[in-house]
């Protein structure tokens, strides 16, 4: 083998690796799912505040998040059965999302029920967890848009401290559109283009 052949072989290997990377942008469904679920839950919550029925807020959140978890499980199951390639990137994102899910349940339901802090603190902690989640995923997939989205959630968590606790969750709406629905749309477009 001469150096030209060696160079060609190495180039071929690089191209193969690049080709595989391009086939992994199908995570948009999960972003849509959680983006819409949170917007729905926030809308429901504020509606309950408006009609002066705040005692049902937790049922609203539990029901919508529960349905979202079931849809997520079904989507993941379908994904496992149909996905052609399992990448290390996808694996890292799956573990990160799963651990964030546990953190959301603990911070959003378990700790407030145990009266470790009051319900008004939940949006602040949820913002911090989401900031970590988006910033890290942005780092894993090397996408600056997501990294900046993470930073925005961190900033929002600080802003929320100065807001009336009843209106803190309203901050979620523009954030969700910016960091979930817009990236979902971009990824969906990319995925359809590469399909």
């Amino acid at each position, binding site marked *: *083998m*001469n*150096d030209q052949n*060696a*160079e060609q*072989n*190495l180039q*071929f*290997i690089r191209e*193969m*690796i690049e*080709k*595989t*990377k391009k*086939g992994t942008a199908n995570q948009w469904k999960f972003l849509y799912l959680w983006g819409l679920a949170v917007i729905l839950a926030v809308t429901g919550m504020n509606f309950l505040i408006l009609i002066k029925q705040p005692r049902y807020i937790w049922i609203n959140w539990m029901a919508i998040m529960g349905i979202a978890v079931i849809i997520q499980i079904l989507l993941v199951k379908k994904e496992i*059965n*149909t996905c*052609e*390639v*399992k*990448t*290390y990137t996808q*694996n890292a994102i799956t573990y990160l999302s799963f651990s964030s899910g546990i953190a959301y349940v603990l911070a959003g339901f378990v700790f407030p029920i145990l009266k470790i802090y009051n319900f008004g603190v939940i949006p602040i902690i949820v913002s911090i967890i989401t900031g970590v989640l988006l910033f890290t995923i942005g780092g894993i997939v090397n996408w600056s848009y997501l990294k900046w989205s993470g930073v925005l959630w961190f900033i929002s968590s600080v802003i929320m401290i100065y807001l009336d606790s009843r209106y803190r969750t309203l901050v979620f709406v523009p954030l969700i559109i910016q960091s979930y629905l817009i990236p979902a749309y971009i990824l969906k477009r990319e995925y359809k283009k590469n399909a």
Partner: protein
Amino acid sequence: MPEIDIIKLSPVLHSPVRIGIMSVLITNIEADFNFLKKSTGATDGNLSSHLSKLEKLGFIKIEKSFSGKKPRTTCSATTKGTKEFKAYINVLENIIQTTKGKKN
């Protein structure tokens, strides 16, 4: 070019299809038959024979399962396969470096 490099090059990896298969498998946890077929551009029969050869030599692990009623073949690189392929890439890089050194 140092003689040792030629000896070190695994003859299993001389085929472009096998290089393609190993490139996909060392950069991913696993890939199914269809993905490997699309990536390498090989035909069903050709890909099957290359996969069998790589499996026989312990470079890859092949698992057969069912997705609903459809049969599914999933492949992943073994530790031995990953090690051999990385060594192969190192040798290629060495060849290029050595030749460049001689030219300079």
